[in-house]
């Protein structure tokens, strides 16, 4: 692959590209899904190919191929140049890239136990032991366990002289219990919804999660939800667990601070942002408790890497400091729009077959102080919601509605009755402005969401979020119809 990407780069430069980069990517993944006592899916995926990105006359062109024969680098480079020349017929401002030192480097994500070296029989057996315990709980219709393993090797070369090899391993696992009563369905997941917890880690993650040890409780909560009262519609104090704070950060901070959205480049699809480039330094995004970073350097985050997909070194960037917007996620093309001389390294592409876009790395709500119990103990009357279930937000990222799997009343500083179908709604800056506490480092965890969608053609990206439970005052909850 390395020879092939160099050949494509040489061909692109010889063909007239003022800038070119080539990424070769080789991905192996394994997805296991167990339903009750049956292995429902056992899929092994191997994907390899390369993509060529060029600038000609200030316009982008991109082409890619999975064919790895000797003639393909020249053919794909020529196609990328043809595409760029076509683009150049409809541009108002030529693309200019801010400088980045041409890194020559190798980077590997840390892990202890190679998940692909663990026997498949053992992985299947672990999931089946967990689903068996869930299935034994009366009222459970479906007990599902999943495991998702990924290893991605990539090679990046550019006409600036960059030469970067990276090797990333991700591991994920989780449980889901479905309880059904007539026309009502309730779901409970562990440790998070939508295939569990994703991390930049090895098989040690699966062992630490103790899926069998959490199976029965997960299933019992799903069944208990069937007979729980519905979350009331009211305005109250809301405490969110770290998993739901993850989604809240993702949708209402991560996306609005992507600079391509701010500049209108995603307007027709994912939308734009309520934030403008002149808001940095002025806009009150939240209370003084709200401090948020984009950090591609943290351990365990599935948004961590050594270098982004245009060769920019991984960085830690402040987005919100003490509630004030202070930064954006940028690229080499867009950084100059906010007066930056360097990209902060958030360009990422799904596989070899996509043009890199500004994507979240790990967007983190920095910890405050105290525990979840401390947050709850300061609430006379409120609701605690846990585990994201649904999400929707407008095209400028202001009006949102999120739903969780489960909730509990809070009365006089203590958890009370379980509540089902909890939902809450809000307007982004008002909601973050109502945040009066964020739990401390001991409650802080780096979650991962593997299914962030953006771009056309659509790309699915793995992004991380370090969060701890947080408390919000005067929130509208229970909204549905």
């Amino acid at each position, binding site marked *: 692959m390395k020879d092939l990407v160099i050949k494509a780069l040489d061909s692109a430069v010889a063909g007239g590209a003022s800038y070119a980069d080539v990424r070769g990517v080789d991905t192996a993944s394994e997805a296991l*899904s167990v339903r009750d006592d049956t*292995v*429902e*899916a056992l*899929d*092994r*995926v*191997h*994907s*390899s190919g390369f993509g060529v990105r060029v600038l000609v006359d200030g*316009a*982008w062109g*991109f*082409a890619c191929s*999975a064919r790895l024969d000797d003639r393909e680098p020249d053919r794909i480079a020529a*196609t*990328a140049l*043809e*595409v760029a*020349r*076509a*683009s150049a*017929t*409809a*541009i*108002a401002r030529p693309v200019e890239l801010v400088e980045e030192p041409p890194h020559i480097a190798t980077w590997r994500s840390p892990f202890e136990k190679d998940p692909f070296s663990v*026997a498949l029989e053992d992985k299947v057996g672990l999931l*089946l032991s967990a689903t068996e315990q869930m299935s034994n709980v009366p009222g459970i*219709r*479906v007990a599902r366990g999943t495991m998702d393993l990924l290893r991605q090797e990539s090679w990046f070369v550019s006409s600036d002289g960059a030469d970067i090899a990276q090797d990333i391993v991700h591991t994920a696992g989780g449980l889901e219990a*479905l309880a059904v009563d007539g*026309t009502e*369905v309730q779901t409970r997941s562990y440790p998070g919804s939508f295939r569990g917890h994703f991390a930049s880690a090895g098989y040690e993650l699966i062992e630490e999660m103790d899926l069998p040890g959490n199976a029965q409780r997960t299933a019992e909560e799903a069944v208990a939800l069937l007979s729980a009262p519905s979350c009331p519609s009211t305005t109250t104090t809301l405490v969110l667990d770290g998993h739901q704070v993850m989604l809240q950060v993702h949708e209402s901070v991560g996306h609005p601070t992507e600079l391509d959205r701010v*500049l*209108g*480049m995603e*307007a*027709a*699809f994912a*939308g734009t942002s*309520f934030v403008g480039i002149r808001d940095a330094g002025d806009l009150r995004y939240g209370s003084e408790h709200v401090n948020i970073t984009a950090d591609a350097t943290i351990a365990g985050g599935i948004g961590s890497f050594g270098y982004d997909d245009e060769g920019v070194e991984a960085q830690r960037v402040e987005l919100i400091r003490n509630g004030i917007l202070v930064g954006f996620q940028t690229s080499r093309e867009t950084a100059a729009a906010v007066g930056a001389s360097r990209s902060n390294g958030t360009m990422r592409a799904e596989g070899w*077959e*996509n*043009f890199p876009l500004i994507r979240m790395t790990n967007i983190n709500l920095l910890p405050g102080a105290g525990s979840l119990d401390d947050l709850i103990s300061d609430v006379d009357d409120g609701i605690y919601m846990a585990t994201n279930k*649904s*999400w*929707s*937000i407008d095209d*400028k990222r*202001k*009006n949102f*509605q999120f739903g969780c799997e489960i909730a509990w009343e809070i009365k006089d500083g203590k958890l009370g009755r379980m509540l089902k*179908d909890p939902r809450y709604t809000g*307007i982004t800056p008002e909601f973050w402005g109502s945040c009066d506490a964020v739990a401390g480092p001991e409650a802080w965890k780096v979650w991962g969401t593997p299914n962030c969608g953006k771009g*056309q*053609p*659509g790309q699915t990206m793995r992004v991380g979020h370090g969060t701890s439970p947080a408390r919000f005052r005067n929130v509208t909850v229970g*909204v*549905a*119809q």
Partner: protein
Amino acid sequence: MTEPGAGLPVTKEDVKRASAQALEIPGADAVEVVVAASATGLTRYAVSQIIQNTVRNETRAYVRVVVGDRVATASTTQLTPDSLARAAERAIEAARASRPDAEFPGLPDPSDVGKADPVFRWDEATAVRTPSDRAVKVREILAASQATNAAGIFETSAHAYGVVSSLGIDCFDAYTRCVTTCLVDNGESTGWGDASSHDFDRVDVEAVARRAAEKAERGRGARDGKPGTYEVVLEPAAVGVLLDYLAYVGMGAKQVIEGESFLASRAGEKVAADGVTVADDVFHPESVGLGFDLEGVPKKRVAVIEGGVAKGPVTDLRTARKLNVDPTGHYSGSSEYGPYASNPVLEPGTMKVEEMISSVADGFLVTRFHYVNVLERPTTLLTGMTRDGTFRIRSGEVAEPVHNFRFAHSVLDALASTRGVGSDVAGFAPEYGSFGSAVAPALHVGEFTFASTTSH
């Protein structure tokens, strides 16, 4: 139906040649190979200039093996006999590590399921379009929009699928697609237009751009609307999204078996107005898809709601056996996700949009929805935002624009209160991926709930 020629990303012979070795791999009792190949050119513009422009050549081969009563799949992007054979070996290794699957019905036997005919929704002129052709179209869009801030795509693509198996399944089909979208932002409001067809010549980019510009202009001066339950006229783009979600939450047999689909408890009941028929129908002239599913079973038209009455779901071999019905040819490629209705069609009625509007005394006109998601699967309760043109209807006429609403409403409830179905349908490509389509007319809905509003 046009036989595909130039521009095919992979031929039937390519599929057979690459698969032959894998189909005879030692150690497997049965083997199936699915090849999906595409060549896609997508030109993306924003702020009235081209910002991204891609040509993607993609091929994936999925090898499913059966070892006794155990099953596993491995895939590769390399369409060579050696690569597919290696994938088969990896799948055999995985199958051996798996557990017996008592519900696996076996791979389809062509003598049982019949031979699938291709749909060939194929236009060669679309398949061979160049980057220059697409750039010309974008320039036409930008000129017609007369906007300094227009955004969208112009895309042409060619797709081919082959399914072969050691039991004799041998299917091949191909389709093309041309999609354009246009959002015009005049600084105060936005408007939307889109078009999709398998035929490049049927996509009128100037009409799409003019429509977006007109919608945006009409949206100037929008104010907050009052949340509540209203009579609404939903344009086809809005209905298309509701159809996609109805297919997602309720039209597949697996959701019925697991109790999550409305069909689990309401089959045979009246769930929609008399004039509402929803089918999965790849044979509809505006649909884009394949004549078989991803295990080579011929695809059937399945009326999931007919004349307002809930019928049955789409099935694959596995779920059909479980429900004791004939398979309808909707295997999605994953037993985990189950059969999928990838070509939902809401059959047209008799009303023009203008007639619908003229019959509304007090309501709203919705251009399209944004970021829709599921709140409750069994009731088909969704939430999402309106976008790019929401207008008050007063005394039968489109009146002032309003800021976008958040809706929270069940698709079935909307269909139950439907007072009119549009006579003209439009085809829509999926938001993600390239598989399937939705075909939708406008709808006049008697009750639709807007829960809150936003600032634009």
